[in-house]
Protein backbone atom coordinates (compact mmCIF):
# COMPACT_ATOMS: atom_id res chain seq x y z
CA UNK A 1 0.00 0.00 0.00
CA UNK A 2 1.54 3.26 -1.09
CA UNK A 3 0.33 5.93 1.29
CA UNK A 4 2.12 8.81 -0.40
CA UNK A 5 0.20 8.24 -3.58
CA UNK A 6 -3.11 8.25 -1.79
CA UNK A 7 -2.51 11.46 0.05
CA UNK A 8 -4.37 14.28 -1.71
CA UNK A 9 -2.35 17.23 -2.97
CA UNK A 10 -2.17 20.27 -0.74
CA UNK A 11 -4.48 22.44 -2.85
CA UNK A 12 -7.54 20.26 -2.33
CA UNK A 13 -6.83 19.15 1.21
CA UNK A 14 -9.58 20.13 3.64
CA UNK A 15 -8.42 18.32 6.75
CA UNK A 16 -4.84 17.64 7.62
CA UNK A 17 -3.32 16.52 10.88
CA UNK A 18 0.23 15.96 12.01
CA UNK A 19 0.99 13.97 15.13
CA UNK A 20 -2.35 14.86 16.69
CA UNK A 21 -2.49 13.39 20.18
CA UNK A 22 -4.61 13.60 23.28
CA UNK A 23 -4.05 12.24 26.76
CA UNK A 24 -6.52 11.89 29.57
CA UNK A 25 -4.38 11.72 32.65
CA UNK A 26 -2.12 8.76 32.03
CA UNK A 27 -4.31 7.25 29.33
CA UNK A 28 -3.23 8.07 25.80
CA UNK A 29 -6.54 8.15 23.96
CA UNK A 30 -5.00 9.28 20.65
CA UNK A 31 -1.29 8.64 20.16
CA UNK A 32 -0.33 11.00 17.39
CA UNK A 33 -2.31 10.52 14.20
CA UNK A 34 -1.39 12.06 10.86
CA UNK A 35 -3.63 12.00 7.83
CA UNK A 36 -5.24 14.27 5.30
CA UNK A 37 -8.66 14.34 3.71
CA UNK A 38 -9.36 15.65 0.22
CA UNK A 39 -12.25 17.89 -0.72
CA UNK A 40 -15.37 15.91 -1.61
CA UNK A 41 -14.09 12.74 -0.03
CA UNK A 42 -16.03 10.44 2.28
CA UNK A 43 -13.37 9.60 4.82
CA UNK A 44 -13.99 7.04 7.52
CA UNK A 45 -12.40 6.29 10.85
CA UNK A 46 -12.98 2.64 11.56
CA UNK A 47 -12.22 1.11 14.89
CA UNK A 48 -13.71 -0.47 18.00
CA UNK A 49 -15.19 1.54 20.85
CA UNK A 50 -12.49 3.28 22.79
CA UNK A 51 -10.04 3.34 19.86
CA UNK A 52 -9.88 7.13 19.92
CA UNK A 53 -12.36 7.95 17.18
CA UNK A 54 -14.55 10.34 19.14
CA UNK A 55 -11.52 11.95 20.77
CA UNK A 56 -10.06 12.66 17.34
CA UNK A 57 -13.31 14.09 16.04
CA UNK A 58 -13.69 16.23 19.16
CA UNK A 59 -10.25 17.71 18.60
CA UNK A 60 -10.95 18.43 14.93
CA UNK A 61 -14.21 20.11 15.93
CA UNK A 62 -12.49 22.31 18.56
CA UNK A 63 -14.31 20.74 21.49
CA UNK A 64 -11.13 19.26 22.90
CA UNK A 65 -7.63 20.75 22.91
CA UNK A 66 -4.93 18.45 21.57
CA UNK A 67 -2.16 17.42 23.96
CA UNK A 68 0.29 17.44 21.06
CA UNK A 69 0.42 17.82 17.32
CA UNK A 70 -1.54 20.09 15.05
CA UNK A 71 -4.36 20.06 12.56
CA UNK A 72 -6.09 22.32 10.10
CA UNK A 73 -9.74 22.02 9.18
CA UNK A 74 -11.03 23.88 6.11
CA UNK A 75 -7.67 25.64 6.07
CA UNK A 76 -7.93 26.94 9.65
CA UNK A 77 -5.79 25.89 12.57
CA UNK A 78 -7.94 24.08 15.14
CA UNK A 79 -6.24 25.76 18.08
CA UNK A 80 -5.83 29.36 16.96
CA UNK A 81 -8.81 29.77 14.58
CA UNK A 82 -11.59 28.06 16.47
CA UNK A 83 -14.45 30.31 15.43
CA UNK A 84 -13.53 29.96 11.75
CA UNK A 85 -13.30 26.19 12.10
CA UNK A 86 -16.67 26.07 13.86
CA UNK A 87 -18.25 28.12 11.10
CA UNK A 88 -16.93 25.77 8.40
CA UNK A 89 -18.07 22.49 9.85
CA UNK A 90 -21.29 20.67 10.56
CA UNK A 91 -21.34 18.11 13.30
CA UNK A 92 -23.55 15.17 14.16
CA UNK A 93 -22.66 13.74 17.52
CA UNK A 94 -22.87 10.18 18.66
CA UNK A 95 -25.18 11.11 21.54
CA UNK A 96 -28.32 13.13 20.86
CA UNK A 97 -27.95 16.91 21.11
CA UNK A 98 -31.45 18.09 20.15
CA UNK A 99 -33.71 20.02 22.45
CA UNK A 100 -36.56 17.55 22.68
CA UNK A 101 -38.98 20.07 24.11
CA UNK A 102 -38.78 22.13 20.94
CA UNK A 103 -40.15 21.23 17.52
CA UNK A 104 -37.97 20.26 14.59
CA UNK A 105 -38.40 23.71 13.07
CA UNK A 106 -37.50 25.41 16.35
CA UNK A 107 -34.35 23.32 16.68
CA UNK A 108 -33.33 24.22 13.14
CA UNK A 109 -34.16 27.92 13.59
CA UNK A 110 -32.03 28.04 16.72
CA UNK A 111 -29.16 26.62 14.71
CA UNK A 112 -29.71 29.11 11.87
CA UNK A 113 -29.73 32.02 14.32
CA UNK A 114 -26.60 30.75 16.02
CA UNK A 115 -24.79 30.62 12.69
CA UNK A 116 -26.21 33.96 11.60
CA UNK A 117 -27.97 32.75 8.44
CA UNK A 118 -29.97 35.33 6.52
CA UNK A 119 -33.72 34.75 6.77
CA UNK A 120 -34.42 33.97 3.11
CA UNK A 121 -31.60 31.43 2.81
CA UNK A 122 -32.59 29.94 6.13
CA UNK A 123 -36.23 29.20 5.31
CA UNK A 124 -35.39 27.73 1.91
CA UNK A 125 -32.66 25.59 3.39
CA UNK A 126 -34.88 24.30 6.18
CA UNK A 127 -37.51 23.34 3.64
CA UNK A 128 -34.95 21.68 1.39
CA UNK A 129 -33.31 19.61 4.12
CA UNK A 130 -36.49 18.61 5.93
CA UNK A 131 -37.96 17.47 2.62
CA UNK A 132 -34.83 15.52 1.79
CA UNK A 133 -34.86 13.84 5.21
CA UNK A 134 -38.59 13.18 4.87
CA UNK A 135 -39.39 15.13 8.00
CA UNK A 136 -41.25 18.11 6.51
CA UNK A 137 -44.67 16.75 7.47
CA UNK A 138 -43.56 16.41 11.06
CA UNK A 139 -41.78 19.75 11.26
CA UNK A 140 -44.05 21.12 13.96
CA UNK A 141 -43.97 18.07 16.22
CA UNK A 142 -41.93 18.11 19.40
CA UNK A 143 -38.72 16.19 18.85
CA UNK A 144 -39.73 14.16 21.91
CA UNK A 145 -42.31 12.44 19.71
CA UNK A 146 -39.72 11.43 17.10
CA UNK A 147 -38.32 7.93 16.68
CA UNK A 148 -34.59 7.33 17.01
CA UNK A 149 -34.12 7.32 13.24
CA UNK A 150 -36.08 10.54 12.80
CA UNK A 151 -34.00 12.26 15.45
CA UNK A 152 -30.80 11.21 13.77
CA UNK A 153 -32.07 12.48 10.43
CA UNK A 154 -33.00 15.78 12.04
CA UNK A 155 -29.52 16.03 13.55
CA UNK A 156 -28.00 15.47 10.13
CA UNK A 157 -30.30 18.10 8.60
CA UNK A 158 -29.24 20.50 11.35
CA UNK A 159 -25.56 19.73 10.84
CA UNK A 160 -25.94 20.66 7.16
CA UNK A 161 -28.15 23.71 7.62
CA UNK A 162 -25.45 26.37 7.49
CA UNK A 163 -23.81 24.97 4.32
CA UNK A 164 -20.70 23.59 6.02
CA UNK A 165 -17.68 22.58 3.93
CA UNK A 166 -17.15 19.50 6.03
CA UNK A 167 -19.69 17.33 7.77
CA UNK A 168 -18.46 15.35 10.76
CA UNK A 169 -20.53 12.31 11.63
CA UNK A 170 -19.64 10.52 14.84
CA UNK A 171 -21.15 7.03 14.61
CA UNK A 172 -24.06 8.38 12.56
CA UNK A 173 -26.11 5.20 12.64
CA UNK A 174 -25.27 3.86 16.10
CA UNK A 175 -28.21 2.10 17.66
CA UNK A 176 -30.41 2.31 14.56
CA UNK A 177 -32.00 -0.64 12.82
CA UNK A 178 -30.47 -1.78 9.49
CA UNK A 179 -33.28 -0.31 7.41
CA UNK A 180 -32.93 3.13 8.95
CA UNK A 181 -29.17 2.84 8.70
CA UNK A 182 -29.50 2.16 5.00
CA UNK A 183 -31.78 5.16 4.52
CA UNK A 184 -29.46 7.50 6.37
CA UNK A 185 -26.65 6.43 4.12
CA UNK A 186 -28.77 7.06 1.09
CA UNK A 187 -29.32 10.66 2.28
CA UNK A 188 -25.68 11.19 3.11
CA UNK A 189 -24.45 9.96 -0.27
CA UNK A 190 -27.19 11.95 -1.99
CA UNK A 191 -26.11 15.09 -0.22
CA UNK A 192 -22.53 14.59 -1.08
CA UNK A 193 -23.47 14.42 -4.76
CA UNK A 194 -25.56 17.60 -4.53
CA UNK A 195 -23.19 19.81 -2.59
CA UNK A 196 -19.41 19.83 -2.69
CA UNK A 197 -19.35 18.28 0.73
CA UNK A 198 -16.53 16.48 2.45
CA UNK A 199 -17.65 13.90 4.97
CA UNK A 200 -15.59 12.69 7.88
CA UNK A 201 -17.19 9.89 9.81
CA UNK A 202 -16.37 7.42 12.50
CA UNK A 203 -17.91 4.01 12.72
CA UNK A 204 -17.42 0.56 14.03
CA UNK A 205 -19.77 -0.98 11.48
CA UNK A 206 -17.92 -2.72 8.67
CA UNK A 207 -20.58 -2.27 6.03
CA UNK A 208 -20.72 1.40 6.83
CA UNK A 209 -17.01 1.72 6.30
CA UNK A 210 -17.45 0.16 2.86
CA UNK A 211 -19.27 3.33 1.78
CA UNK A 212 -16.19 5.43 2.37
CA UNK A 213 -13.75 6.48 -0.33
CA UNK A 214 -10.91 5.89 2.07
CA UNK A 215 -10.78 4.58 5.57
CA UNK A 216 -8.30 4.87 8.34
CA UNK A 217 -8.28 1.86 10.61
CA UNK A 218 -7.65 3.02 14.13
CA UNK A 219 -6.88 0.90 17.14
CA UNK A 220 -5.73 1.93 20.59
CA UNK A 221 -5.20 5.50 19.47
CA UNK A 222 -3.12 4.75 16.41
CA UNK A 223 -3.85 4.53 12.69
CA UNK A 224 -2.81 1.04 11.64
CA UNK A 225 -3.84 1.31 7.98
CA UNK A 226 -5.22 3.93 5.63
CA UNK A 227 -6.47 3.27 2.12
CA UNK A 228 -9.45 2.57 -0.07
CA UNK A 229 -11.56 -0.31 1.31
CA UNK A 230 -10.91 -2.59 -1.72
CA UNK A 231 -7.17 -2.05 -1.49
CA UNK A 232 -7.23 -2.95 2.20
CA UNK A 233 -9.22 -6.10 1.53
CA UNK A 234 -7.02 -7.13 -1.40
CA UNK A 235 -3.98 -6.65 0.78
CA UNK A 236 -5.06 -9.67 2.80
CA UNK A 237 -4.17 -11.97 -0.06
CA UNK A 238 -7.25 -13.98 -0.75
CA UNK A 239 -10.44 -15.45 0.60
CA UNK A 240 -11.03 -16.27 4.21
CA UNK A 241 -11.61 -19.94 4.92
CA UNK A 242 -13.12 -21.02 8.20
CA UNK A 243 -13.18 -24.69 9.12
CA UNK A 244 -15.20 -25.85 12.04
CA UNK A 245 -13.31 -28.79 13.46
CA UNK A 246 -13.28 -31.10 16.43
CA UNK A 247 -9.74 -30.28 17.43
CA UNK A 248 -8.68 -26.81 16.36
CA UNK A 249 -5.08 -27.17 17.56
CA UNK A 250 -4.52 -30.36 15.62
CA UNK A 251 -6.18 -28.97 12.51
CA UNK A 252 -3.99 -25.89 12.59
CA UNK A 253 -0.89 -28.02 12.98
CA UNK A 254 -1.90 -30.21 10.06
CA UNK A 255 -2.63 -27.18 7.84
CA UNK A 256 0.82 -25.87 8.52
CA UNK A 257 2.55 -29.20 8.05
CA UNK A 258 0.87 -30.08 4.78
CA UNK A 259 0.19 -26.74 3.11
CA UNK A 260 2.31 -24.25 5.05
CA UNK A 261 -0.86 -22.35 5.88
CA UNK A 262 -0.77 -20.46 9.15
CA UNK A 263 -4.25 -20.56 10.57
CA UNK A 264 -5.62 -18.62 13.49
CA UNK A 265 -7.30 -20.77 16.10
CA UNK A 266 -10.66 -19.94 17.57
CA UNK A 267 -12.55 -22.06 20.08
CA UNK A 268 -13.94 -24.66 17.71
CA UNK A 269 -12.58 -23.52 14.38
CA UNK A 270 -9.52 -22.50 12.41
CA UNK A 271 -9.31 -19.64 9.97
CA UNK A 272 -6.82 -18.97 7.21
CA UNK A 273 -6.42 -16.96 4.04
CA UNK A 274 -5.98 -18.36 0.59
CA UNK A 275 -6.47 -17.15 -2.98
CA UNK A 276 -9.17 -19.05 -4.96
CA UNK A 277 -10.14 -21.05 -1.90
CA UNK A 278 -13.20 -22.63 -3.54
CA UNK A 279 -10.91 -24.64 -5.86
CA UNK A 280 -8.61 -25.68 -3.07
CA UNK A 281 -11.18 -26.79 -0.53
CA UNK A 282 -12.54 -30.03 -2.08
CA UNK A 283 -9.08 -31.56 -2.20
CA UNK A 284 -8.33 -30.48 1.34
CA UNK A 285 -11.55 -31.91 2.70
CA UNK A 286 -10.97 -35.28 0.98
CA UNK A 287 -7.55 -35.83 2.46
CA UNK A 288 -7.65 -33.92 5.77
CA UNK A 289 -7.12 -36.20 8.75
CA UNK A 290 -8.66 -33.94 11.43
CA UNK A 291 -12.43 -34.12 11.39
CA UNK A 292 -14.04 -31.18 9.59
CA UNK A 293 -17.60 -30.38 10.70
CA UNK A 294 -18.25 -27.41 8.44
CA UNK A 295 -16.40 -25.23 5.97
CA UNK A 296 -17.09 -21.69 4.80
CA UNK A 297 -15.35 -19.50 2.26
CA UNK A 298 -15.95 -15.83 1.95
CA UNK A 299 -14.45 -12.75 0.44
CA UNK A 300 -12.44 -10.84 3.04
CA UNK A 301 -14.21 -8.08 4.93
CA UNK A 302 -12.81 -5.08 6.67
CA UNK A 303 -13.24 -7.00 9.89
CA UNK A 304 -10.69 -9.49 8.57
CA UNK A 305 -8.41 -6.62 7.67
CA UNK A 306 -8.80 -5.29 11.17
CA UNK A 307 -8.18 -8.70 12.69
CA UNK A 308 -5.06 -9.30 10.65
CA UNK A 309 -3.67 -5.86 11.51
CA UNK A 310 -4.46 -5.79 15.21
CA UNK A 311 -4.85 -9.40 16.20
CA UNK A 312 -8.32 -8.88 17.60
CA UNK A 313 -11.77 -8.47 16.18
CA UNK A 314 -13.42 -5.09 15.91
CA UNK A 315 -16.53 -6.50 17.52
CA UNK A 316 -14.66 -7.23 20.74
CA UNK A 317 -16.10 -4.17 22.31
CA UNK A 318 -13.93 -2.94 25.06
CA UNK A 319 -16.34 -0.74 26.93
CA UNK A 320 -13.98 -0.53 29.85
CA UNK A 321 -11.68 1.88 28.06
CA UNK A 322 -14.57 3.98 26.87
CA UNK A 323 -16.17 4.14 30.27
CA UNK A 324 -12.88 5.07 31.77
CA UNK A 325 -12.74 8.01 29.40
CA UNK A 326 -16.29 9.02 30.23
CA UNK A 327 -15.63 8.85 33.95
CA UNK A 328 -12.58 10.91 33.43
CA UNK A 329 -14.46 13.50 31.43
CA UNK A 330 -17.07 13.76 34.15
CA UNK A 331 -14.59 14.69 36.83
CA UNK A 332 -15.03 18.44 37.23
CA UNK A 333 -11.31 19.10 37.68
CA UNK A 334 -10.58 17.60 34.30
CA UNK A 335 -12.95 19.88 32.46
CA UNK A 336 -10.45 22.66 32.49
CA UNK A 337 -8.63 20.91 29.71
CA UNK A 338 -11.69 20.92 27.52
CA UNK A 339 -12.41 24.11 25.73
Amino acid at each position, binding site marked *: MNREQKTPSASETVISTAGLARNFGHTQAVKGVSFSVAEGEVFGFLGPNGAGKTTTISMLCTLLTPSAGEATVAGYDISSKR*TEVRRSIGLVFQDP*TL*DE*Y*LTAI*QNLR*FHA*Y*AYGMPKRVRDERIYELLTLMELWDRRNSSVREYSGGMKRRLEIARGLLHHPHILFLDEPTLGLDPQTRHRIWKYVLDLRRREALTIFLTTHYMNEAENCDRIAIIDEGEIVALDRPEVLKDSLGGDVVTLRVEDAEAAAAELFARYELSASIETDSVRFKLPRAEEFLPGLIRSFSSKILAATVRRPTLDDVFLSLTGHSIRDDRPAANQQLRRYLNTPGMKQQL*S
Partner: protein
Amino acid sequence: MRQTLRGIWVIAYRELLRFARERSRLASSLGMPIIFMVVFSEGLKRQIGALAVGVDFVKFMYPGIIAMSVFINAIFSGLSVVWDREIGFLKEVLVSPLNRSGVVLGKALGASVIALFQALVMLALAPLFGVPLSLRIVLELIPIVLVLAFSLAGFGLLIGSRMRSQQSFQVLVQMVVFPLTFLAGVFFPVNNVPRWMEIVSKLNPLTYGVDAIRRIFLADEISAAMRASSHPIIGVTVFGHTTTTIEDVALVGLLGTALLAGAIFSFNRHT
Protein backbone atom coordinates in the same frame (compact mmCIF):
# COMPACT_ATOMS: atom_id res chain seq x y z
CA MET B 1 -18.61 41.62 19.83
CA ARG B 2 -21.16 40.74 17.16
CA GLN B 3 -20.84 37.08 18.15
CA THR B 4 -21.42 38.02 21.78
CA LEU B 5 -24.57 39.98 20.96
CA ARG B 6 -25.82 37.19 18.73
CA GLY B 7 -25.10 34.69 21.49
CA ILE B 8 -27.05 36.75 24.00
CA TRP B 9 -30.22 36.99 21.96
CA VAL B 10 -30.12 33.48 20.48
CA ILE B 11 -29.63 31.87 23.87
CA ALA B 12 -32.17 34.14 25.58
CA TYR B 13 -34.65 33.41 22.80
CA ARG B 14 -34.34 29.69 23.41
CA GLU B 15 -34.67 30.06 27.17
CA LEU B 16 -37.96 31.88 26.66
CA LEU B 17 -39.13 29.40 24.05
CA ARG B 18 -38.42 26.55 26.45
CA PHE B 19 -40.20 28.33 29.26
CA ALA B 20 -43.26 28.96 27.12
CA ARG B 21 -43.38 25.35 25.92
CA GLU B 22 -43.01 23.77 29.33
CA ARG B 23 -46.37 24.33 30.92
CA SER B 24 -45.51 22.44 34.08
CA ARG B 25 -42.54 24.68 34.76
CA LEU B 26 -44.66 27.75 34.25
CA ALA B 27 -47.30 26.43 36.61
CA SER B 28 -44.88 25.32 39.31
CA SER B 29 -42.84 28.50 39.35
CA LEU B 30 -45.95 30.63 39.66
CA GLY B 31 -47.58 28.25 42.06
CA MET B 32 -44.93 28.36 44.74
CA PRO B 33 -44.97 32.10 45.51
CA ILE B 34 -48.76 32.14 45.39
CA ILE B 35 -48.97 29.24 47.82
CA PHE B 36 -46.50 30.94 50.17
CA MET B 37 -48.49 34.12 49.93
CA VAL B 38 -51.86 32.55 50.57
CA VAL B 39 -50.79 30.13 53.30
CA PHE B 40 -48.63 32.52 55.29
CA SER B 41 -50.86 35.53 54.99
CA GLU B 42 -54.03 33.63 55.82
CA GLY B 43 -52.30 31.51 58.46
CA LEU B 44 -50.55 34.31 60.31
CA LYS B 45 -52.84 37.25 59.68
CA ARG B 46 -54.57 36.91 63.02
CA GLN B 47 -51.43 36.09 65.01
CA ILE B 48 -49.26 38.95 63.82
CA GLY B 49 -50.39 42.51 64.07
CA ALA B 50 -48.90 45.56 62.38
CA LEU B 51 -45.10 45.47 62.08
CA ALA B 52 -44.91 49.21 61.79
CA VAL B 53 -47.39 51.99 61.38
CA GLY B 54 -49.57 51.09 58.40
CA VAL B 55 -47.65 47.85 57.64
CA ASP B 56 -49.51 44.64 58.36
CA PHE B 57 -47.90 41.24 57.85
CA VAL B 58 -49.29 40.73 54.34
CA LYS B 59 -48.04 44.09 53.14
CA PHE B 60 -44.68 43.29 54.69
CA MET B 61 -44.32 39.81 53.27
CA TYR B 62 -45.69 40.42 49.76
CA PRO B 63 -42.61 42.28 48.40
CA GLY B 64 -40.43 39.63 50.04
CA ILE B 65 -42.25 36.88 48.15
CA ILE B 66 -41.72 38.75 44.88
CA ALA B 67 -38.01 39.01 45.67
CA MET B 68 -37.88 35.34 46.57
CA SER B 69 -39.51 34.29 43.30
CA VAL B 70 -37.03 36.49 41.38
CA PHE B 71 -34.09 34.84 43.19
CA ILE B 72 -35.27 31.31 42.60
CA ASN B 73 -36.02 31.87 38.93
CA ALA B 74 -32.71 33.59 38.33
CA ILE B 75 -30.69 30.90 40.07
CA PHE B 76 -32.42 28.28 37.98
CA SER B 77 -30.59 29.67 34.94
CA GLY B 78 -27.74 27.55 36.28
CA LEU B 79 -29.97 24.51 36.31
CA SER B 80 -30.72 25.18 32.67
CA VAL B 81 -26.99 24.88 31.87
CA VAL B 82 -26.77 21.59 33.75
CA TRP B 83 -29.88 20.38 31.99
CA ASP B 84 -28.44 21.32 28.58
CA ARG B 85 -25.31 19.44 29.45
CA GLU B 86 -27.31 16.35 30.41
CA ILE B 87 -29.45 16.29 27.28
CA GLY B 88 -26.42 17.05 25.09
CA PHE B 89 -27.79 20.31 23.72
CA LEU B 90 -24.89 22.20 25.28
CA LYS B 91 -22.60 20.57 22.69
CA GLU B 92 -24.69 22.02 19.87
CA VAL B 93 -24.15 25.43 21.47
CA LEU B 94 -20.45 24.93 22.19
CA VAL B 95 -19.56 23.81 18.69
CA SER B 96 -21.40 26.74 17.12
CA PRO B 97 -19.55 30.00 16.41
CA LEU B 98 -21.31 31.70 19.35
CA ASN B 99 -18.79 32.75 21.95
CA ARG B 100 -18.94 31.66 25.57
CA SER B 101 -19.53 35.13 27.02
CA GLY B 102 -22.60 35.56 24.84
CA VAL B 103 -23.91 32.17 25.92
CA VAL B 104 -23.54 33.01 29.62
CA LEU B 105 -25.07 36.47 29.26
CA GLY B 106 -27.88 35.06 27.11
CA LYS B 107 -28.75 32.52 29.80
CA ALA B 108 -28.74 35.35 32.36
CA LEU B 109 -30.94 37.53 30.16
CA GLY B 110 -33.40 34.70 29.50
CA ALA B 111 -33.67 33.94 33.21
CA SER B 112 -34.09 37.63 34.02
CA VAL B 113 -36.93 38.08 31.57
CA ILE B 114 -38.63 34.99 33.01
CA ALA B 115 -38.11 36.34 36.53
CA LEU B 116 -39.56 39.69 35.49
CA PHE B 117 -42.55 38.01 33.90
CA GLN B 118 -43.27 36.17 37.12
CA ALA B 119 -42.83 39.30 39.19
CA LEU B 120 -45.37 41.01 36.96
CA VAL B 121 -47.82 38.14 37.33
CA MET B 122 -47.43 38.40 41.11
CA LEU B 123 -47.93 42.12 40.79
CA ALA B 124 -51.18 41.58 38.93
CA LEU B 125 -52.37 39.51 41.89
CA ALA B 126 -51.56 42.25 44.42
CA PRO B 127 -55.15 43.54 44.69
CA LEU B 128 -56.28 40.02 45.68
CA PHE B 129 -53.99 40.20 48.72
CA GLY B 130 -55.08 43.75 49.52
CA VAL B 131 -51.75 45.28 48.51
CA PRO B 132 -52.19 48.70 46.91
CA LEU B 133 -50.49 49.28 43.54
CA SER B 134 -49.47 52.39 41.65
CA LEU B 135 -47.78 53.18 38.38
CA ARG B 136 -44.71 54.33 40.31
CA ILE B 137 -44.40 50.89 41.90
CA VAL B 138 -44.56 49.13 38.53
CA LEU B 139 -42.04 51.46 36.90
CA GLU B 140 -39.57 51.17 39.76
CA LEU B 141 -39.99 47.45 40.13
CA ILE B 142 -39.04 46.53 36.54
CA PRO B 143 -35.42 47.81 36.52
CA ILE B 144 -34.76 46.64 40.06
CA VAL B 145 -36.07 43.14 39.36
CA LEU B 146 -33.85 42.96 36.26
CA VAL B 147 -30.73 43.97 38.18
CA LEU B 148 -31.45 41.49 40.98
CA ALA B 149 -32.26 38.71 38.50
CA PHE B 150 -29.10 39.29 36.47
CA SER B 151 -27.02 39.20 39.63
CA LEU B 152 -28.56 36.02 40.95
CA ALA B 153 -28.32 34.46 37.49
CA GLY B 154 -24.59 35.12 37.75
CA PHE B 155 -24.56 33.03 40.92
CA GLY B 156 -26.63 30.26 39.34
CA LEU B 157 -24.49 30.16 36.20
CA LEU B 158 -21.26 30.11 38.16
CA ILE B 159 -22.48 26.98 39.93
CA GLY B 160 -24.02 25.55 36.77
CA SER B 161 -20.75 25.83 34.86
CA ARG B 162 -19.18 23.37 37.29
CA MET B 163 -22.01 20.97 38.03
CA ARG B 164 -22.54 17.78 36.08
CA SER B 165 -25.91 16.62 37.33
CA GLN B 166 -29.26 18.13 38.09
CA GLN B 167 -29.39 16.30 41.41
CA SER B 168 -26.28 17.98 42.72
CA PHE B 169 -27.60 21.34 41.62
CA GLN B 170 -30.89 20.71 43.41
CA VAL B 171 -29.05 19.68 46.55
CA LEU B 172 -27.07 22.89 46.44
CA VAL B 173 -30.24 24.90 46.00
CA GLN B 174 -31.74 23.25 49.05
CA MET B 175 -28.61 23.55 51.19
CA VAL B 176 -27.61 27.10 50.23
CA VAL B 177 -30.26 28.98 48.32
CA PHE B 178 -33.29 28.22 50.48
CA PRO B 179 -31.55 29.05 53.79
CA LEU B 180 -30.16 32.27 52.28
CA THR B 181 -33.61 33.18 51.01
CA PHE B 182 -35.26 32.53 54.36
CA LEU B 183 -32.57 34.55 56.15
CA ALA B 184 -33.01 37.45 53.73
CA GLY B 185 -35.88 39.00 55.59
CA VAL B 186 -38.62 37.68 53.36
CA PHE B 187 -40.82 36.72 56.31
CA PHE B 188 -39.49 38.90 59.12
CA PRO B 189 -37.74 42.23 59.61
CA VAL B 190 -34.00 41.64 59.95
CA ASN B 191 -33.61 44.55 62.37
CA ASN B 192 -35.71 42.80 64.96
CA VAL B 193 -34.36 39.25 65.32
CA PRO B 194 -31.85 37.65 67.72
CA ARG B 195 -28.37 39.05 67.37
CA TRP B 196 -26.79 36.01 65.62
CA MET B 197 -29.53 35.92 63.03
CA GLU B 198 -29.28 39.65 62.50
CA ILE B 199 -25.56 39.28 61.74
CA VAL B 200 -26.10 36.37 59.36
CA SER B 201 -28.95 38.16 57.64
CA LYS B 202 -27.06 41.39 57.19
CA LEU B 203 -24.06 39.54 55.75
CA ASN B 204 -26.43 37.86 53.31
CA PRO B 205 -26.53 39.82 50.04
CA LEU B 206 -30.05 38.61 49.32
CA THR B 207 -31.25 40.70 52.29
CA TYR B 208 -30.44 43.85 50.36
CA GLY B 209 -32.30 42.56 47.32
CA VAL B 210 -35.40 41.90 49.40
CA ASP B 211 -35.04 45.34 50.99
CA ALA B 212 -34.77 47.07 47.61
CA ILE B 213 -38.07 45.57 46.48
CA ARG B 214 -39.76 46.18 49.83
CA ARG B 215 -38.76 49.85 49.69
CA ILE B 216 -40.67 50.24 46.43
CA PHE B 217 -43.87 49.04 48.03
CA LEU B 218 -43.43 50.56 51.48
CA ALA B 219 -41.64 53.78 50.54
CA ASP B 220 -43.82 56.02 52.68
CA GLU B 221 -44.03 53.65 55.64
CA ILE B 222 -40.27 53.12 55.76
CA SER B 223 -39.45 56.81 55.68
CA ALA B 224 -42.05 57.36 58.40
CA ALA B 225 -40.48 54.59 60.48
CA MET B 226 -37.03 56.10 59.94
CA ARG B 227 -38.23 59.46 61.07
CA ALA B 228 -39.55 57.87 64.24
CA SER B 229 -36.34 56.01 65.12
CA SER B 230 -32.73 55.71 64.01
CA HIS B 231 -33.26 51.96 64.34
CA PRO B 232 -36.43 51.38 62.30
CA ILE B 233 -38.19 48.07 62.56
CA ILE B 234 -38.32 47.74 58.76
CA GLY B 235 -35.50 48.45 56.32
CA VAL B 236 -31.94 47.23 56.81
CA THR B 237 -29.79 49.07 59.30
CA VAL B 238 -26.06 48.42 59.29
CA PHE B 239 -23.86 50.19 61.86
CA GLY B 240 -26.64 52.66 62.50
CA HIS B 241 -27.10 53.47 58.83
CA THR B 242 -30.31 52.42 57.12
CA THR B 243 -29.50 51.57 53.49
CA THR B 244 -31.23 53.35 50.65
CA THR B 245 -32.70 51.67 47.56
CA ILE B 246 -29.73 52.83 45.47
CA GLU B 247 -27.30 51.33 47.97
CA ASP B 248 -29.22 48.06 48.08
CA VAL B 249 -29.31 47.74 44.30
CA ALA B 250 -25.70 48.84 43.87
CA LEU B 251 -24.52 46.26 46.38
CA VAL B 252 -26.38 43.38 44.78
CA GLY B 253 -25.54 44.63 41.27
CA LEU B 254 -21.81 44.87 41.94
CA LEU B 255 -21.73 41.45 43.49
CA GLY B 256 -23.77 40.13 40.55
CA THR B 257 -21.36 41.64 38.02
CA ALA B 258 -18.49 39.90 39.77
CA LEU B 259 -20.43 36.61 39.80
CA LEU B 260 -21.30 36.90 36.11
CA ALA B 261 -17.67 37.63 35.26
CA GLY B 262 -16.77 34.56 37.31
CA ALA B 263 -19.38 32.50 35.47
CA ILE B 264 -17.99 33.59 32.08
CA PHE B 265 -14.47 32.77 33.20
CA SER B 266 -15.51 29.41 34.57
CA PHE B 267 -17.53 28.61 31.45
CA ASN B 268 -14.57 29.44 29.23
CA ARG B 269 -12.29 27.25 31.26
CA HIS B 270 -14.42 24.27 32.03
CA THR B 271 -16.59 23.62 29.02
